[in-house]
Protein backbone atom coordinates (compact mmCIF):
# COMPACT_ATOMS: atom_id res chain seq x y z
CA UNK A 1 0.00 0.00 0.00
CA UNK A 2 1.98 2.98 -1.31
CA UNK A 3 1.24 6.69 -1.17
CA UNK A 4 3.29 7.58 -4.26
CA UNK A 5 5.24 5.68 -6.92
CA UNK A 6 8.69 4.27 -6.07
CA UNK A 7 10.35 6.83 -8.34
CA UNK A 8 8.62 9.76 -6.64
CA UNK A 9 9.46 8.29 -3.23
CA UNK A 10 13.13 7.90 -4.19
CA UNK A 11 13.40 11.52 -5.31
CA UNK A 12 11.44 12.73 -2.31
CA UNK A 13 13.97 10.97 -0.06
CA UNK A 14 16.83 12.47 -2.05
CA UNK A 15 15.35 15.93 -1.52
CA UNK A 16 14.72 15.59 2.20
CA UNK A 17 18.07 13.92 2.96
CA UNK A 18 20.44 15.33 0.35
CA UNK A 19 18.71 18.70 0.10
CA UNK A 20 18.41 19.25 3.84
CA UNK A 21 21.98 17.99 4.44
CA UNK A 22 23.36 20.30 1.75
CA UNK A 23 21.41 23.24 3.15
CA UNK A 24 22.54 22.43 6.66
CA UNK A 25 26.15 22.23 5.52
CA UNK A 26 25.93 25.79 4.21
CA UNK A 27 24.00 26.99 7.29
CA UNK A 28 26.49 25.64 9.85
CA UNK A 29 29.47 26.65 7.72
CA UNK A 30 28.15 30.23 7.74
CA UNK A 31 27.50 30.00 11.52
CA UNK A 32 31.09 28.88 11.99
CA UNK A 33 32.37 31.67 9.74
CA UNK A 34 30.48 34.30 11.76
CA UNK A 35 32.00 32.95 14.98
CA UNK A 36 35.60 33.06 13.75
CA UNK A 37 36.40 36.19 15.74
CA UNK A 38 34.64 35.01 18.93
CA UNK A 39 36.31 34.76 22.32
CA UNK A 40 37.29 31.10 22.63
CA UNK A 41 37.72 31.43 26.39
CA UNK A 42 33.94 31.89 26.63
CA UNK A 43 32.34 28.42 27.21
CA UNK A 44 29.25 29.42 25.19
CA UNK A 45 31.40 30.32 22.18
CA UNK A 46 33.26 27.00 22.51
CA UNK A 47 29.93 25.12 22.72
CA UNK A 48 28.75 26.83 19.55
CA UNK A 49 32.02 26.12 17.71
CA UNK A 50 31.78 22.46 18.67
CA UNK A 51 28.06 22.28 17.76
CA UNK A 52 28.46 23.92 14.36
CA UNK A 53 31.48 21.74 13.55
CA UNK A 54 29.54 18.58 14.42
CA UNK A 55 26.63 19.98 12.40
CA UNK A 56 28.92 20.14 9.37
CA UNK A 57 30.11 16.57 10.01
CA UNK A 58 26.50 15.30 10.28
CA UNK A 59 25.51 17.20 7.13
CA UNK A 60 28.46 15.67 5.26
CA UNK A 61 27.33 12.21 6.40
CA UNK A 62 23.91 13.01 4.92
CA UNK A 63 25.31 14.25 1.61
CA UNK A 64 27.62 11.23 1.22
CA UNK A 65 24.76 8.86 2.19
CA UNK A 66 22.56 10.36 -0.52
CA UNK A 67 25.33 9.99 -3.10
CA UNK A 68 25.82 6.36 -2.00
CA UNK A 69 22.10 5.74 -2.38
CA UNK A 70 22.35 6.86 -6.00
CA UNK A 71 25.53 4.82 -6.57
CA UNK A 72 27.70 7.92 -7.11
CA UNK A 73 30.24 7.02 -4.40
Amino acid at each position, binding site marked *: MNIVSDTVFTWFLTAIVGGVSGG*WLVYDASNLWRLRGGDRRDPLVRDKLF*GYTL*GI*VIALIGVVGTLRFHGVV
Partner: protein
Amino acid sequence: MAVTQQRVVSPYNPANAVTASRFLTLPPLYWAIAHGYHQWATLFILICGTLDKVDGLVARIFDCRSAFGEVFDAITDALCYGFGLVVVAAFGWAPVAPVVLVVVLGFTNSGLRFAYAARAGKTVNYKSYAMERLVAYTGYLIGFATADFEVGYFYWLFPVVMIVIMVHDAKRMLVDPLPVALRAA
Protein backbone atom coordinates in the same frame (compact mmCIF):
# COMPACT_ATOMS: atom_id res chain seq x y z
CA MET B 1 15.65 47.80 45.81
CA ALA B 2 13.66 46.85 42.69
CA VAL B 3 11.92 43.50 42.86
CA THR B 4 11.56 41.69 39.56
CA GLN B 5 8.78 39.15 39.30
CA GLN B 6 9.49 36.06 37.27
CA ARG B 7 6.73 35.29 34.76
CA VAL B 8 5.05 31.95 35.44
CA VAL B 9 4.10 29.92 32.35
CA SER B 10 1.45 27.24 32.73
CA PRO B 11 2.56 23.78 31.59
CA TYR B 12 -0.82 23.54 29.79
CA ASN B 13 0.14 25.79 26.90
CA PRO B 14 -0.07 25.50 23.08
CA ALA B 15 3.62 24.65 22.64
CA ASN B 16 3.47 21.75 25.11
CA ALA B 17 0.23 20.58 23.45
CA VAL B 18 2.07 20.37 20.12
CA THR B 19 4.92 18.52 21.83
CA ALA B 20 2.46 16.06 23.42
CA SER B 21 0.68 15.54 20.09
CA ARG B 22 3.85 13.87 18.78
CA PHE B 23 2.91 10.79 20.81
CA LEU B 24 -0.16 10.41 18.56
CA THR B 25 2.12 9.52 15.64
CA LEU B 26 3.54 6.46 17.43
CA PRO B 27 0.57 4.01 17.14
CA PRO B 28 0.19 4.60 13.37
CA LEU B 29 3.98 4.35 12.99
CA TYR B 30 3.90 0.94 14.67
CA TRP B 31 0.91 -0.11 12.53
CA ALA B 32 2.70 0.87 9.30
CA ILE B 33 5.91 -0.95 10.25
CA ALA B 34 4.05 -4.06 11.43
CA HIS B 35 2.23 -4.22 8.09
CA GLY B 36 5.34 -3.50 5.99
CA TYR B 37 4.11 -0.16 4.67
CA HIS B 38 7.42 1.67 4.18
CA GLN B 39 6.01 4.87 2.76
CA TRP B 40 3.35 5.26 5.44
CA ALA B 41 5.90 4.61 8.19
CA THR B 42 8.15 7.26 6.66
CA LEU B 43 5.24 9.70 6.58
CA PHE B 44 4.43 9.20 10.29
CA ILE B 45 8.02 9.66 11.45
CA LEU B 46 8.22 12.72 9.22
CA ILE B 47 5.14 14.18 10.93
CA CYS B 48 6.67 13.42 14.35
CA GLY B 49 9.90 15.17 13.36
CA THR B 50 8.07 18.15 11.86
CA LEU B 51 6.01 18.64 15.04
CA ASP B 52 9.32 18.77 16.93
CA LYS B 53 10.20 21.87 14.90
CA VAL B 54 6.68 23.34 15.13
CA ASP B 55 6.53 23.30 18.96
CA GLY B 56 9.45 25.72 19.22
CA LEU B 57 7.78 28.04 16.71
CA VAL B 58 4.48 27.87 18.64
CA ALA B 59 6.33 28.66 21.89
CA ARG B 60 7.75 31.82 20.32
CA ILE B 61 4.44 32.88 18.74
CA PHE B 62 2.43 32.41 21.97
CA ASP B 63 5.33 33.52 24.17
CA CYS B 64 5.04 30.42 26.35
CA ARG B 65 8.65 29.23 26.52
CA SER B 66 9.55 27.62 29.85
CA ALA B 67 12.19 25.40 31.43
CA PHE B 68 9.52 22.72 31.83
CA GLY B 69 8.71 22.97 28.11
CA GLU B 70 12.37 22.47 27.18
CA VAL B 71 12.69 19.41 29.41
CA PHE B 72 9.33 18.03 28.22
CA ASP B 73 10.52 18.48 24.63
CA ALA B 74 13.77 16.63 25.36
CA ILE B 75 11.90 13.77 27.10
CA THR B 76 9.43 13.56 24.19
CA ASP B 77 12.34 13.39 21.73
CA ALA B 78 13.84 10.53 23.71
CA LEU B 79 10.57 8.59 24.01
CA CYS B 80 9.38 9.07 20.41
CA TYR B 81 12.71 8.41 18.75
CA GLY B 82 13.58 5.64 21.22
CA PHE B 83 10.26 3.94 20.43
CA GLY B 84 10.81 4.34 16.68
CA LEU B 85 14.33 2.91 16.84
CA VAL B 86 13.29 -0.10 18.92
CA VAL B 87 10.37 -0.88 16.58
CA VAL B 88 12.42 -0.65 13.33
CA ALA B 89 15.09 -2.88 14.90
CA ALA B 90 12.49 -5.34 16.23
CA PHE B 91 10.97 -5.74 12.76
CA GLY B 92 14.39 -6.21 11.14
CA TRP B 93 14.34 -2.88 9.26
CA ALA B 94 17.51 -1.70 11.05
CA PRO B 95 20.60 -3.44 12.48
CA VAL B 96 20.07 -4.33 16.16
CA ALA B 97 23.61 -3.67 17.50
CA PRO B 98 23.85 0.07 16.70
CA VAL B 99 20.25 0.56 17.84
CA VAL B 100 21.02 -1.03 21.23
CA LEU B 101 24.13 1.16 21.48
CA VAL B 102 22.14 4.30 20.64
CA VAL B 103 19.39 3.47 23.19
CA VAL B 104 22.00 2.84 25.92
CA LEU B 105 23.76 6.10 25.05
CA GLY B 106 20.38 7.87 25.06
CA PHE B 107 19.65 6.69 28.62
CA THR B 108 23.16 7.72 29.66
CA ASN B 109 22.60 11.16 28.16
CA SER B 110 19.31 11.51 30.10
CA GLY B 111 21.19 10.57 33.28
CA LEU B 112 23.79 13.25 32.58
CA ARG B 113 21.03 15.83 32.17
CA PHE B 114 19.42 14.83 35.47
CA ALA B 115 22.82 15.14 37.14
CA TYR B 116 23.23 18.60 35.60
CA ALA B 117 19.78 19.65 36.87
CA ALA B 118 20.72 18.30 40.32
CA ARG B 119 23.91 20.39 40.24
CA ALA B 120 21.88 23.47 39.29
CA GLY B 121 19.27 22.66 41.95
CA LYS B 122 16.31 23.24 39.62
CA THR B 123 14.66 22.07 36.38
CA VAL B 124 17.09 23.20 33.74
CA ASN B 125 18.10 21.88 30.36
CA TYR B 126 21.72 22.02 29.20
CA LYS B 127 21.65 23.56 25.73
CA SER B 128 23.93 21.48 23.56
CA TYR B 129 24.27 22.84 20.03
CA ALA B 130 25.83 19.58 18.88
CA MET B 131 23.16 17.38 20.49
CA GLU B 132 20.41 19.48 18.87
CA ARG B 133 21.89 18.55 15.50
CA LEU B 134 22.19 14.91 16.49
CA VAL B 135 18.51 14.83 17.54
CA ALA B 136 17.59 15.86 13.99
CA TYR B 137 19.81 12.99 12.76
CA THR B 138 17.93 10.64 15.14
CA GLY B 139 14.61 11.55 13.55
CA TYR B 140 16.14 10.87 10.17
CA LEU B 141 17.65 7.61 11.43
CA ILE B 142 14.21 6.07 11.81
CA GLY B 143 13.26 7.44 8.40
CA PHE B 144 16.34 5.80 6.83
CA ALA B 145 15.09 2.45 8.14
CA THR B 146 11.46 2.96 7.09
CA ALA B 147 12.57 4.13 3.63
CA ASP B 148 15.36 1.52 3.29
CA PHE B 149 17.82 4.36 2.57
CA GLU B 150 21.51 3.37 3.10
CA VAL B 151 20.52 1.86 6.45
CA GLY B 152 23.83 0.22 7.47
CA TYR B 153 25.89 3.30 6.59
CA PHE B 154 23.75 5.74 8.56
CA TYR B 155 23.19 3.41 11.54
CA TRP B 156 26.85 2.58 12.12
CA LEU B 157 28.08 6.16 11.80
CA PHE B 158 25.47 7.53 14.20
CA PRO B 159 26.82 6.04 17.50
CA VAL B 160 30.34 7.20 16.62
CA VAL B 161 29.15 10.83 16.35
CA MET B 162 26.95 10.43 19.43
CA ILE B 163 29.87 9.21 21.59
CA VAL B 164 32.01 12.21 20.52
CA ILE B 165 29.21 14.64 21.44
CA MET B 166 28.43 12.92 24.74
CA VAL B 167 32.06 13.04 25.88
CA HIS B 168 32.09 16.80 25.20
CA ASP B 169 28.70 17.39 26.85
CA ALA B 170 29.49 15.20 29.88
CA LYS B 171 32.51 17.39 30.64
CA ARG B 172 30.39 20.54 30.23
CA MET B 173 27.58 19.25 32.46
CA LEU B 174 29.50 17.45 35.19
CA VAL B 175 32.97 19.02 35.39
CA ASP B 176 32.92 22.60 34.10
CA PRO B 177 31.59 25.39 36.34
CA LEU B 178 27.86 26.14 36.03
CA PRO B 179 26.91 29.21 33.94
CA VAL B 180 26.78 32.44 35.95
CA ALA B 181 22.99 32.78 35.46
CA LEU B 182 22.42 29.41 37.16
CA ARG B 183 24.85 30.09 39.97
CA ALA B 184 23.18 33.41 40.77
CA ALA B 185 19.63 31.93 40.78
